[in-house]
């Protein structure tokens, strides 16, 4: 369904839950226009990046997106470099940004911090990741990559592998995919299985899913295999991390057990869960996926700022 893109002007991008299936498809379709697109349509606009947690791809790809559209960027990349070290609240910092920037992106370890920032700021707020909760722009770029490689989001068989408990990207992605009648396969050790509240929602929506600890039980069914890093920083107990950190390591052997047109996605960074030997195969889509992040973020910045091509 064609939608009026003006509805996204001034809109916050906090949670994939705030977007309908039609919204998502409209945004992905619009994002296609931004592949290799570099025109100064955002000249004179400023993006503030409030990063209270480390980030490479999200921060740099937002900066790259803004700069390649002619805009400017300011911000900080660790909590210690901001007034939060002095006890300033997210609300106050975000409110202040109204006077400094035209749009802000925030990453914060507390869940709900981006929503709180959006309550404070009049300018559009984009969530760059809030704790283990949401990372909507990652979800948009994941969906964009699937749509680009598979031509559709409908009826795909999607495997989610690794840390499904703490990984916010898989939570957001599973919620978004539930709009599109996908078959989902959650492949994780018991300790890191998909949270019950997300499984409950899938049940309510009658989305078929299967849980297993063994990748090769389901690998030949998959159109997409979405791999995640086991995130050391999310484990309350380091001993638990040690037990599961090497549980899945993908290498060339994987290719014997999958459809030839499988695409392997990963939000990156990877540690050792995908052997670099896989990088040369056409199934390895993760670096292109990362590039798509700039494309999708260009489109989102253009939309929320109301300056469209």
């Amino acid at each position, binding site marked *: 369904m064609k939608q009026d893109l003006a509805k996204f002007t001034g809109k916050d991008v906090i949670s994939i839950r705030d977007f309908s299936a039609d919204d998502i498809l409209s945004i992905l379709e619009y994002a296609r226009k931004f592949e290799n697109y570099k025109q100064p349509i955002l000249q004179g606009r400023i993006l503030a990046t409030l990063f209270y947690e480390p980030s490479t791809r999200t921060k740099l790809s937002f900066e790259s997106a803004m700069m390649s559209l002619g805009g400017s960027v300011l911000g900080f990349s660790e909590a210690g470099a901001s007034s939060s070290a002095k006890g300033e*609240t997210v609300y106050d910092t975000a409110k202040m940004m109204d006077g400094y920037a035209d749009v802000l992106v925030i990453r914060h*370890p*507390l*869940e*709900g911090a981006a929503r*709180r920032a959006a309550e404070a700021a009049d300018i559009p707020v984009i969530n760059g990741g809030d*704790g283990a909760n949401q990372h909507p722009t990652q979800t948009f770029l994941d969906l964009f990559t699937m749509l680009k490689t598979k031509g559709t989001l409908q009826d795909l068989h999607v495997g989610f592998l690794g840390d499904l408990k703490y990984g916010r990207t898989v939570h957001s992605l599973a919620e978004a995919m539930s709009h599109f009648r996908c078959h989902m396969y959650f492949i994780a050790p018991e300790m890191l299985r998909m949270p019950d509240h997300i499984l409950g*929602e899938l049940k309510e929506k009658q989305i078929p899913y299967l849980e297993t600890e063994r990748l090769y039980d389901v690998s030949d069914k998959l159109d997409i295999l979405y791999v995640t890093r086991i995130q050391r920083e999310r484990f309350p107990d380091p001993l638990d991390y040690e037990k599961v950190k090497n549980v899945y390591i993908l290498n060339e052997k994987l290719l014997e057990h999958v459809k030839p047109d499988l695409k392997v996605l990963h939000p990156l960074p990877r540690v050792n869960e995908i052997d670099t030997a896989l990088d040369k195969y056409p199934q390895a889509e993760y670096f292109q996926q990362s590039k798509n992040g700039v494309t999708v973020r260009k489109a989102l910045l253009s939309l929320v700022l109301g300056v469209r091509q």
Partner: protein
Amino acid sequence: MISKDMKVSKLRNGAVIDHLAPGMAMKAIEFLGVRGADSLAIGMFFESKKMGRKDILKFENRQLSREEINKIAVMSPEATVCIIKDYHVVEKFTASLPHEIEGIIRCSNPKCITNNEKVATRFVVQEKEPLLVRCQYCERAMHGNEIEFV
């Protein structure tokens, strides 16, 4: 013989909240506040045919807004409210859950911003029966039996 009934004079004007879940009266007062009432009678753990035990609150000369009453439903879905004028019940209704609940439920997620900065909680009621609410900040869903009040 000592009467088992609590001796409370009839209200001339005010409101009675009946069928509160046993033990919830104090929490309801904490939430509603006592300001504006000339007197307040609190009954706890009364026998009830419908509920086994129940709590009751009687507010003299205190009006309750529909919003306040509906929030009582979060604590006690079976609560009923009577509005009294000149000793007569002029209105009687059952509290019903609002779509959004602000400030009275604590989020069960320790990493939610509402548990780390001074922010009033906001929950959306997703299901009424059985009760399922979702934090509007961290998006954690909570069932009725997991709810704790602020």
